[in-house]
Each structure stands twice: as C-alpha cells, then as structure tokens.
C-alpha cells in the first residue's frame, strides 16, 4: 500500500478495473496501438540455439482449431486418438527423442503437447515417418488440414503447418521480448529503443497479434538431459 491521494487519485488508480476502461482498452486503445505499432505474431516453437541444454527437452505446444467444434466433432477427434494408441506409442518409442507427449482438447482446439530432444524439423519428419497415418486422420479434422495430407506427400508443407500452429514461447527473461519484436519488425536496436515502461505495451501488442502463447520455456525437473540419457541412466533401454 502506498501513500493515499485524493479522491481523484483513488478514482484513477481504480480506473483499469472499471468496465468502461476495459471496454475502451479492448475496442479502442489496443487496436489503435496495434495500428500505430504493427507487431507481427512471433513464430512458434523453441528458438534456434547451438547450446546443448537448449537442444534437449524442447517444448511443442501444437494448437489445432477443429473444423467441427460440436461435441460430435470433438468426439471424432477423441476417437482418432483413442483408436490409434498402439500406433502412437510405438511411433513415439521409435522416434526415440520424446520425453512425453499427450493430446488434449481445450475448447475448440485439439492440442498436442510434447517435450522432445533435437531439431524441430527432424522431430516432425520422424513423426511423419512413424505415425504419419495417425496424423493424417487427426489433421483432416482440423481447419486447413486437407492441404497437407497425406503428410508423406507434403513433408515440407506439413512441417511448416505444424510450425505455424506451434505456440510462440515467450522469452524466459522478460526484457528479451524487446529484442524478439524488434527483430520481427525488422527494426534496428542500437540501444534500449523502447522505454522500459513500454514493456507491458509490447506484451499486449504481441498477445493481440498472437492470442495463444507459451509463458516461458517451462520448468524442467532434470534440465539438460536427453530422453536417451535418462532412459540409459535408469537402465530401461536404448
């Protein structure tokens, strides 16, 4: 609690929580600043890095909008996964670089959340090779899915499609957002071009352009180790 001001100060302090200001923000301020400061959605997935621990336990948050968002459409997506559990599990074992993977239905979206080691493109290539048929069934239920199936015949397009549906991962260090957005805008950054107090606006504009994001790279219980290293240490093979 800070020093008390007059009634007008208290009114202004509470302004952001008022319905009027929330309406004004959503309908006027954010669209205005998005127009004034064009902010492209930042690309999804982990960012390239040559450092070893950045190349293991990488996060994939694949968010796919369902064509049919009714309970029946969602049931079809559920069945597409449930009827292929053996194929998915065998395929993931064969990929060999996956720590965990799961499908979840959130609202109108089918999501695949996984943690894997190594390069993103090779991860998806391995997927196509090992469980491409399952992915084909799933992707057909998703908006824009027809254009990339069968995946075996559209490998590069499939990889691009997955990348486009993988969530942007917000940087672990908050001020790194400036650097990422400057790079996306193609603007030079000789120094701290954006005032530090503008960090909230940069975040708001990114969330305006990119409604779903992963908040940071996530926690790891045993960071820096690959699935193969963990399995070998535990004595459970490969």
């Amino acid at each position: 609690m800070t020093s008390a001001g007059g009634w007008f100060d208290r009114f202004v302090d509470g302004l952001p929580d008022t319905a009027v200001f929330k309406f004004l923000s959503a309908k006027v301020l954010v669209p205005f600043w998005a127009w004034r400061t064009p902010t492209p959605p930042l690309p999804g997935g982990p960012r390239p890095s040559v450092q070893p621990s950045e190349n293991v336990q990488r996060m994939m948050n694949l968010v796919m909008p369902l064509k049919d968002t009714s309970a029946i459409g969602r049931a079809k997506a559920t069945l597409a996964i449930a009827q292929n559990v053996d194929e998915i599990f065998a395929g993931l074992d064969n990929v060999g670089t996956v720590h965990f993977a799961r499908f979840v239905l959130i609202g109108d979206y089918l999501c695949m959340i996984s943690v894997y080691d190594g390069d993103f493109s090779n991860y998806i290539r391995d997927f196509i090779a090992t469980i491409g048929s399952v992915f084909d069934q799933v992707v057909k239920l998703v908006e824009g899915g027809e254009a990339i199936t069968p995946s075996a015949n559209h490998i590069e397009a499939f990889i691009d499609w997955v990348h486009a549906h993988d969530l942007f991962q917000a940087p672990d260090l908050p001020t790194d957002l400036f650097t990422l957005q400057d790079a996306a805008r193609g603007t030079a950054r000789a120094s701290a071009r954006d005032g530090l107090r503008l960090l909230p606006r940069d975040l708001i504009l990114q969330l305006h352009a990119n409604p779903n994001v992963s908040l940071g790279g996530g926690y790891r219980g045993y960071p820096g180790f690959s699935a193969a290293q963990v399995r070998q240490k535990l004595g459970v093979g490969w």
Partner: protein
Amino acid sequence: MDDPGIAAKLVEALDASFPDGRQDLRPVHTFGIGATGFFEASDVARDYSIAEHFQGQQIRIVARFSNGSGSGVQHDGWSDVRGLAIRFQLANGAAADLIAMTLNEFFTPTVETFLKFSPATIPIAAERESAWLKIFDMLRLMLPMDDPYPGQKTEAVTGALKFADKHSYAQLPVFQAGALGAPVSYARATYHAVHTFVVVGPDGLRRPVRFTWQPVSGVLTTDRTSPPSDKYLQQELCDRLAKGPARFILMMTIGEIGDDFDDPSRPWPPHRVRVVMGTLTLDAVPDDQVANGELLSFNPWRLVPGIEPSDDPILRARRDAYEYSRNRRKAPPGCPFSRS
C-alpha cells in the same frame, strides 16, 4: 581488481546513492540479522567440488539476512533487494563465504558501467505521479509509476528507469528489481549468488557454475495493497526459528559454452543442468547480534580449494570493495586473500 582506488570509488558511489546512510555501518545491506545453523552437502556434491563444505559432513554456518538498502532508516515492508550471506565454518579455523541476493542479476556488467549507473540512481524527491499523467500512461498502454510509500521522501526508480532506457544491459535488473516486493520472511525468498564461480571436481574437471538458495518453505511476498510495516523481518525470523528450523536448498547451475560467464547482469537460461548441492538448516538467532551479525565481514572471495572466482569483473571488484568497507566501519578482519 588491482586498483585500490576503485574500491573506494565503488563504496563512495554507494554512499552517494544513500545520502541518509551511516559510515559506521555497511554502505548497502545496512540492516540485517544474524542466524546460525549448519549445512549438509548432498550425496552428489562431492562429485562436482572438492571444497570441504561439499564433502557431506555437517558444517556449522553463520548467516546474515539483510535488506539491500543502505539507508539509515529501516523499511522492511518496502520493495527492495534482500541479502543472504553465509559463512561456512570449516576445520582448523578456515572459512568460505557465499553471498547472495533476491535479485537474479547485478545491475551492470562491469565496474565502469556501475560507476555510471550509481550516480544515475541518486535519490530525488519522491512525488506521486499526477492522476492526469497516470491517465496519459494508461492511454499509451503503459503502467503508471508506483506511488511513494507513506512517509517516503526520496526515490531512485526514476533515475534507474532513465538509465535503463539508455543502457539495455540495465533493463532486466531494473525491471526485475521493481517487481521484487517485500518477503513475508527472510526464510521465504530465493537468493541468487549472481556471479560465476568455478568448481573443481575430484577428477580435476573445472565447471563454471552459479549458486542459488531456494527456501524449503516456499517464496512469498507481502500484499502490496496492505500498509507496509517498517520492522517485522527480524522478529519474524526469531519467532520462526524459535518454533523450528528454516531450511534452504543450495542449487548449483552449470554453465555452458555460449553463456555469459563473466557478466553478472545477464542470468543464464533456466534450462541448464542444475545440481542439488546440499541443505542449509538455520536453527537459532544468536542473542549477540553484534558479534554474530554486524561485526561479521563477508567477502565473496573468501573461498577454499575446490571453488574459485571467475573473471567476472564485478566479482573481482567486490573483493577490495568489501575490504574497504570493512576497514571503514572498523569491523574485525577476515582476510579473504589468506583463504582462512
């Protein structure tokens, strides 16, 4: 750090940042409380360092918790960096220190940049941002400035923000310092040693590492909407330890090629290999706080074989700056260069 004049400049720069500080006390982290307990290394710690306190036997320790401010007036409830300095009391009178704070990075990467940063944060009169300016901020999708605390006469945030807007290396620490708040207890904060050290294993392998103390009881800050209390942290620690011990886990993060080993203003990403090095147990607050707190002189260079300083220029400068500060306030010596 070979220029003894730099040590004086650093301490004087801190003095200038806290005009109401006292020269018979520490220039920063002025108010604090000592505690005692022991450290027990984990089973794996000895695989990474031959340092005596990482071999597994119980090591007696002395700790000092502190508020980061160098002001002569105590304000526990204000947002501020907090410190935790630990002295590992080793065999034959030897000792090793580990000094950490709640901010995950230092404000600047070098001594020279710190000597520019410090004058920029000399306090100015604290004024509440006008309601109209706040509305203007909101219309620009900016957070309004925090209001001063009741009774707060000066503030350094404005200067720090201006500096950070011109020097990108200061953006992260200034931003994160503004979000620190006040812990409900010294035992409920995470403390980062920020500098890179080099640990030497039994096989001679040298690893660049950074240390963090994580509270077993979890991190918790006070409610910012409630009135801040000026004095509660020391009594809370006394009350807490009277009921039972407080514990911290010592985590060691191993750096990789490509990390900023010598830049304390840049934290390493959270995906590096982390090793549990041991558990700190605090079980008492000594009655004699002068001997067990105020007269203790910690130094990040008080190290033992098995843990060495990196080339981090701020770490190197702290060696002499701590000694200069100790001499000035006439605290007993604990020479960091004799490694004793």
